[in-house]
């Protein structure tokens, strides 16, 4: 079996049983693996409307056919479940080393079912698989738990939740290799609800290759493209993803004060250039990555930790009107160590600051916490982060995200979220195509599953007018499908700074056999996107949820180069549904499902339209 290991682990935490099941190769190839395979398992095995924290919900950790293979950026894995934050499908991706090391145990995926009665962790060393007691690491931070586990087991890689996941924070992440995160959707809380603290792996197996010589040739060609690309081989490794701060700000789409403004004169204080000059210790790379966008930074107290990504620099920085890099670095470190999604965490503090500014949150609500909710308070962003993870004081309210917070004051529109998940670091009023991604993303407010910033600002693969609507819906659809491909085969989406669809076809076919061409591989991504959509429709999440916060649709930008613009979703959304082959209510047509080989799921269309 080329590319795939051929085995899936089914771990029932209620019964404490582990079954090794054969991977159906035809299914794996049809859905590619990782994200696609996980979504299919969720749709097939989890009934509609289950409580995300119940025994009925499952959590799937899956690798792609190329994860661990000797091709560039093959360090990725995916966590798939039903999100407690959004109620949609949860699909959260991470890099580092854990994914390939898990695959080296000889398994493609793990399906966790049920719920343990006491804290446990899963230990996998090739065919030796044990559910072990985790009472000694429950309550520990990610770094503490990792250190204890590494003391008990030699040569392992650790995936774990932190206290935030144990405390069922709806913004809890799953962490691996200390500072890599499967961040979004509150997926760490699903692990916490199952009393599952960690998954510890050590493997000795190799990914078998369809054509080893061809893999070598194809791989060195793609590595060369990435090294020669000015972004993948230049801007990203030199400055990290935070190099975006200045360009996004100069374009007038950097959200400030919870999207009340879209430009700041202070951006350079939190830019990638400033991080590089003042805080960077070294860069770090994930498994088989020639890009190395990861940062290692020094905190104010001298400790050396994983550094923040662009999104984090924005959420804790400009969105809270904080321009203190030491505080942002510390908040980022706390998110990693306590297991919080940095986007939702920072953006929720920003929403709370606006709720305080407007008088909804009162001084007496927060006085016992000894922390302010004033714009620009660097001490506050650090302090609230820890309180959110531990559900202490007002942090207990913050930790379920900005939507539930704002809704509790009767003003849900002050949450800058879609499907209850916080939006990332780009104001869609100035990047019209990117706004489509926000509105229709199957996992709620998210930038990475169709990064229209690439064509609309960065010029990849070509430059589009960021304010124009023309052709944007069709463009966004291709980006959504291509990202589903990259996620599902197990590579990093940053490889698109250099590589395109034919490159992914080359790599997949060299590793797995000559299965796909350009059109059919992109169609496999489309299949995955549609199946996710069916999962959401089955949950009652229909087109009324494909929207943006009122502020972005009705209030023109007040400052900077995008001043005066709103987002024109009313024009773009119908066009998007049409190019998707969906009806005007955003429901896939029978013909579309047939074209994609999803006939067996037509039964869910009836449910959706009711």
């Amino acid at each position, binding site marked *: 079996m080329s590319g795939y290991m051929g085995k899936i682990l089914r771990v029932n935490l209620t019964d404490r049983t582990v079954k090794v099941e054969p991977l159906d190769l035809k299914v794996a190839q049809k859905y590619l693996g990782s994200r696609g395979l996980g979504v299919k398992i969720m749709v097939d095995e989890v009934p509609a409307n289950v409580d995300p924290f119940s025994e009925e919900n499952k959590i799937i950790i899956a690798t792609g056919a190329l994860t661990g293979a000797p091709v560039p950026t093959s360090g990725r894995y995916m966590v798939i479940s039903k999100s407690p934050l959004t109620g949609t499908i949860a699909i959260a991706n991470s890099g580092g080393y854990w994914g390939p090391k898990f695959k080296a145990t000889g398994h493609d995926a793990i399906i966790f079912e049920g719920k343990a009665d006491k804290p446990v962790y899963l230990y996998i060393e090739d065919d030796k698989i044990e559910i072990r007691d985790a009472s000694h690491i429950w309550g520990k931070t990610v770094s503490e738990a990792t250190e204890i586990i590494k003391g008990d087991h030699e040569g392992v890689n650790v995936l774990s939740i932190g206290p935030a996941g144990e405390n069922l924070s709806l913004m809890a992440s799953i962490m691996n290799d200390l500072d890599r995160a499967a961040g979004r959707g509150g997926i760490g809380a699903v692990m916490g609800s199952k009393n599952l603290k960690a998954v510890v792996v050590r493997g000795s197996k190799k990914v078998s290759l369809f054509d080893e010589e061809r893999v070598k040739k194809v791989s060195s060609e793609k590595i060369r493209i990435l090294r020669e*690309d*000015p*972004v*993948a081989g*230049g*801007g*990203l490794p*030199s*400055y*990290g*993803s*935070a*190099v*975006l701060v*200045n*360009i996004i700000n*100069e*374009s*007038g789409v950097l959200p400030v004060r919870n999207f009340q403004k879209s*430009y700041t004169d202070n951006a*350079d204080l939190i*830019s*990638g*250039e400033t991080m590089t000059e003042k805080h960077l210790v070294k860069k770090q790379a994930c498994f088989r990555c020639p890009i190395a*966008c990861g940062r290692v930074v020094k905190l104010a107290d001298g400790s050396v930790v994983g550094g923040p*990504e*662009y*999104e984090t620099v924005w959420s804790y920085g400009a969105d809270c009107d904080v321009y203190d890099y030491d505080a942002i670095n510390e908040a980022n470190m706390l998110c990693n160590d306590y297991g919080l999604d940095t986007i939702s965490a920072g953006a929720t503090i920003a929403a709370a600051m606006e709720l305080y500014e407007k008088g909804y949150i009162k001084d007496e609500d927060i006085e016992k916490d000894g922390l302010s909710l004033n714009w620009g308070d660097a001490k506050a962003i650090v302090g609230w982060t820890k309180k959110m993870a531990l559900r202490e004081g007002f942090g207990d309210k913050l930790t379920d995200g900005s939507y539930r917070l704002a809704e509790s004051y009767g003003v849900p529109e002050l949450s800058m979220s879609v499907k209850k998940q916080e939006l990332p670091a780009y104001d869609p009023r100035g990047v019209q195509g990117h706004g489509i991604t926000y509105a229709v993303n199957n996992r709620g407010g998210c*930038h*990475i599953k169709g*990064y229209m*910033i*690439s064509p609309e*600002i*960065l*010029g*990849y693969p070509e*430059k589009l007018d*960021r304010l124009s609507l023309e052709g944007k819906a069709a463009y966004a659809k291709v980006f959504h499908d291509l990202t589903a491909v990259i996620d599902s085969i197990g590579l990093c*989406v*940053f490889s698109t*700074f250099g590589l395109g669809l034919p490159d992914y076809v080359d790599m997949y076919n060299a590793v797995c056999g000559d299965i796909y061409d350009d059109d059919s591989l992109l169609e496999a991504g489309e299949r995955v996107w549609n199946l996710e959509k069916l999962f959401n429709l089955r949950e009652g999440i229909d087109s009324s949820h494909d929207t943006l916060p009122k502020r972005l649709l009705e209030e023109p930008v007040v400052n*900077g*180069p*995008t001043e005066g613009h709103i987002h024109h979703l009313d024009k773009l959304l119908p066009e998007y549904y049409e190019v998707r082959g969906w009806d005007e209510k955003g429901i896939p047509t029978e013909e579309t499902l047939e074209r994609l080989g999803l006939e067996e799921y037509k039964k869910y269309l009836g449910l959706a339209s009711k």
Partner: protein
Amino acid sequence: MIKVEVRLFAYFREGRWKKKTLEFEEGTTLSDIVKYLNIDEEEVSILLLNGIDGPASREPKDGDIVSLFPPVGGG
């Protein structure tokens, strides 16, 4: 003469500066400004005039802001 604020980013700052207000003759194009800075136009990936990307043939007016980026990306 017109005054234009020129902002440089990423490695364009090396051996230069972050931002400066410079004086040019009316009718000066962005391309002329890039040449004046001794930057190879091929290396300019994003060329903003008041936050809007576009061709180097554009002519800034008095008080305009020009931002120059080499290829950058992230997400």
